[in-house]
């Protein structure tokens, strides 16, 4: 009985730690998004200067921390056989959120390596698209938090993700049209389109995850 008692206590202890880990993971996703917005802004104004590289370094650190947390959560969920009914859903969710962080990081690196030449006339549209994409992911963070704590709000928050994703699609199409109707060389047009498309894909992925969350929440309803 004493063993049982101590194992119960450790169960509650590890539960609290896991809750913290999951919260931290979602915080990282949100912070990486905000950093991404700053990075794009910095790139458009100062190209890849020292500050840009410092920001990129910070994103890399956050991505690495997110990877570590994902592994910790994965091990804890399996080793302590926690949430058996929702375990695979939670792990898949974390994996997809991790991919989202990877997409942000990948975009930052593409800016650093390929140094796309965005003419000034496209700057405000590109920033606007970036902001909408980041807002989309912010709404996703809310949806993820509600999945863990307040299942009834999942649908409402997921709806906001869908709204922002549509907004970002509109902004992407508009910007892509403007790029291709400009007087730039085709190779540059293609290059810019690649970046715009890669940024827009982040909101597509966010929407896919929000859709998954709706399904998970239906499954999770007691």
């Amino acid at each position, binding site marked *: 009985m004493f063993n*049982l008692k101590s194992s*119960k206590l450790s*169960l*509650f202890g590890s*539960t*609290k730690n*896991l*809750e913290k880990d*999951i919260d931290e993971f979602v915080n990282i996703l949100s912070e990486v998004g905000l950093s991404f917005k700053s990075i794009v802004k910095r790139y458009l104004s100062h190209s890849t200067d020292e500050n840009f590289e410092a920001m990129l370094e910070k994103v890399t650190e956050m991505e690495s921390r997110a990877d570590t947390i994902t592994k910790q959560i994965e091990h804890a969920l399996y080793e302590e*056989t*926690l*949430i*058996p*009914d*929702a375990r695979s859903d*939670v792990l898949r969710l974390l994996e997809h959120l991790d991919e989202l962080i990877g997409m942000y990081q990948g975009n930052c690196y593409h800016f650093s390596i390929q140094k796309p030449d965005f003419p000034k006339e496209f700057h405000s549209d590109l920033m606007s698209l970036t902001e909408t994409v980041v807002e989309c992911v912010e709404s996703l963070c809310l949806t993820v938090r509600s*999945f*863990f*704590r*307040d*299942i*009834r709000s999942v649908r409402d928050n997921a709806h906001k993700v869908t709204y922002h994703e549509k907004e970002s699609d509109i902004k992407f199409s508009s910007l892509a049209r403007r790029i291709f109707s400009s007087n730039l060389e085709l190779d540059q047009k293609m290059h810019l389109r690649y970046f715009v498309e890669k940024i827009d894909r982040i909101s597509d992925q966010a929407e896919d995850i929000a859709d998954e969350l709706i399904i998970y929440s239906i499954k*999770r309803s*007691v």
Partner: protein
Amino acid sequence: MELTIILFLFGGLFLGWSLGANDAANVFGTAVGTRMVNFRTAAIICSVFVILGAVVSGSGTTETIGKLGAINALPGAFACCVAAGFAVYLMTKFGLPVSTTQAIVGAIIGWNLFTGSQTDTGTLTTILATWIICPILAGVIAIGLFLTVKKIISKSRIHILRLDAYTRLALLLAGAFGAYSLGANNIANVMGVFVNVSPFTDINIANLFVLTSIQQLFLLGGIAIAVGVFTYSKKVMFTVGNDLLKLSPVSAFVVVLSHSIVLFLFASQGISSFLISLNLPALPLVPVSSSQAIVGGVIGIGLLKGGKEVKWSVAGKISIGWVVLPLLTMVIAMFILYILKYMFNLSVVF
């Protein structure tokens, strides 16, 4: 003589083992089936609390079983227990959660028929009525509990991981309560027929308390149930936990708790006296079926969710098992009594 008694008691112990393998599996079936509690933990808690329930509160339902047929010869009691144990074992082989209550009732009626003894129709009617009331009551309690628990969870905005931890603990507590109630309620099935012929004498333990001969009998039966839990209940636990309806951990807890409440209601002399003191009709102290209580609870939850997810074919198969089991046990009991009487020249009635 002592050796003969021990030999005949083995019949009861065999039935106890069957009860552990089948009925006791129901208590933790949903918890183990949903993988919220591992088998080893379930088996330990189940065993300890079944024994406690049997020894501390086991006498209430024994009187009812005694009234149905006062088996007064050890060979007769042996035949009834072996018949019931064998029939439950057969059903367990087929993966059907059945009830030792029904088996032992069938066996006693078989003994009554064989020996020409009178079956107390009033008691029989009470027992049969509880077989209908028990699953319905468990279903109604499960629906009420489920709605309440759902509301609490929804309002508390509890984290999924914390909910998981609380549910796990609640399943263990409800399972312990269920095992205690099962021991108290169903020990009569295992050892009830031996009460009139108990070979034990009261033991005074350090002037602190007296372990009566009946309690010693029940302790032995409780240990047999525990052995059944450890050796043969795992498969049935998974069957109960998964086959009828895919339950969420919270639903699993609700089912176990409603089952435990029903078993407790039908075993508690305190509640019975309390209801009588209020001039209310008391619930009869009858050994009810944990299988029926669990299945009633699961179907109650299933109906609340629209009934589409319930595997009605499985429910039908289980119900047929409940009808077949007492009849089968009755026939087996009469067959064994015949062998004991005419082939071994043993007296099955005084």
